[in-house]
């Protein structure tokens, strides 16, 4: 079997003195999609931030393409190919859409993503390229947040509740775009999402986190059918 793209081995992590994640181990294969499920405050975002290197790691290690990246700083992990799209989106509000995208522009020759490709994926951003970040709608901000991260040419995207607070029609459009992006570009996806049915439909595997530990791990299809488990850990948040 091929080496996993990312693996966490016995990771205990948190913020300051507080432990949020407790002995978490996890492998993610290249090109696969993983849903992170669980109630609010169980450590889903902490897990993502730990992959990115923003938390305090008390023990355990993080490996990327077989290499130990536990000691790497967040920017080095980003350069290695881990792309993080935080829940807050954090668009640079004083910069235009195009400036948001060119902040990390590099002259790299064999880069997979450039402005043209990103605009092709999100035509709406092209229309609004001159607008300031602060003038965008929620959906457009989310598209820009994804597009901006794509410009770093990631192999893996960490998407933290990308659909939260968006209008249903925008949600559909985003789901379709994210799915297309993963299929066509072979992108590895880690998705945190409140609506379990949406998340499971978009991914191959799923884990459920409960109080900082992995409570369930399996394929998304199996979990989709396992209403008892979903009900137990997430209160059967199956949307409508």
């Amino acid at each position, binding site marked *: 079997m091929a080496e996993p793209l990312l693996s966490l081995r016995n990771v205990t992590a948190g913020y300051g003195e507080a432990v949020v994640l407790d002995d978490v181990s996890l492998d993610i294969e290249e090109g696969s999609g993983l849903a992170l499920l669980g109630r609010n405050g169980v450590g889903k975002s902490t897990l993502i931030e730990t992959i*990115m290197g*923003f938390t305090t790691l008390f023990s355990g290690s993080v490996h990327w393409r077989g290499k130990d990246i536990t000691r790497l*700083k*967040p*920017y*080095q992990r*980003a*350069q290695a190919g881990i792309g*993080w799209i*935080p829940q807050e989106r*954090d668009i*640079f*509000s*004083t*910069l235009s859409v*195009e*400036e948001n*995208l*060119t*902040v*990390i*522009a*590099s*002259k790299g020759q064999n880069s997979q993503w*450039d*402005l*043209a490709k990103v*605009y092709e994926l999100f035509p709406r951003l*092209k229309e609004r390229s001159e607008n300031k970040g602060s003038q965008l709608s929620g959906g457009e901000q989310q598209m820009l947040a994804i597009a*901006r*991260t794509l*410009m*770093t040419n990631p192999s893996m995207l960490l998407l933290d509740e990308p659909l939260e607070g968006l209008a249903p029609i925008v949600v559909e459009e985003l789901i379709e775009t994210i799915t297309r992006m993963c299929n066509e570009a072979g992108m590895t996806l880690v998705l945190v999402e409140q609506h379990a049915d949406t998340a499971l439909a978009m991914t191959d595997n799923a884990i459920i986190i409960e109080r900082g530990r992995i409570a369930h791990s399996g394929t998304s299809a199996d979990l989709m059918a396992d209403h008892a488990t979903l009900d137990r850990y997430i209160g059967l948040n199956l949307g409508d």
Partner: protein
Amino acid sequence: MQQQITDPQKWMRQKTRISPIEIAFWLSVLAVPYIFFPNYLALANQIAATAIFCISLDLIIGYAGIISLGHAAFFGLGAYAAGILSQKGWGEPITGALFGAIFAGFGGWIVSFMIVRVQHLALLMITLGLGFLLVELANTLDWLTGGSDGLVGIDTWNLFGVFKFTFWGHTAYGYTLGATFLVFLLARRLVNSPFGLALETIRENPQRTTALGVPNRARLQKVFTISAAIAGLAGAILTQTTETVSLDSLGFQHSADIAVMLILGGTGRLYGAILGTIIFMVARDQLSGMNPQYWYFWIGLLLMIVVLFMPRGILGGLEKLMEKVRGL
């Protein structure tokens, strides 16, 4: 429909094209002192050199968000380096100015390791302390710097081996303004590059920026070093054209003055630094002519009015006014 540009570097270059109003500005600052105010060329020279200094401060305050109350330290480092080099026998202006810039840049690089580790009040204190420290150091090393008497015996050779630096200051102003223009072009290129945009985003959201693969500290260290080198260049050029350096060039008053100039003109827009310098220095010249003791009263008043009513500086205020006029 605007043509789609997909190469970021090309797009950035397009943003840095010089507009007609800018050409008019630079031609007038070149011509006006020579033609209409030949008696004020010495002042014009001081303004041009100080504008370089102010641009250097704008790079760190206006773009990177590094507040400094001790930036004169680097101006002074460049000034003494160029002055001592000339005193010891090498008075060629361009290499001397570059020597001052590199010397100050090296100092800035060393200090930058401290700068990127602190923020807010601690940043002010570190930069303030740096200024105090250097003044006393220069005072103690009086065998080298001349101490409180200032550095004497500076002799600047002809520019390009041809143009003599005279009492009237024709050569001096041309030389200094040329440097100001080059520094301006460099600074503008810098702030409109991905490097410059990243400085703004580090200021706005450091965590997000580093998550995009930007080594924040290294970038801040780089811009601080560049800024120190430019400040040193300003100091070196003023030393060469006035053939004197004093301890004041390193001191707190000088650091405070340059910060006031930048705030008056408006931060984060480069032209604000230039405009603020012109307003401050002309006002100082005129007001101190009227009453040498109380002129800071007026500067203080102007500063308070600008900060209260034009938070983006005089240039920012003018831009807002223009937008309103156009909107009518």
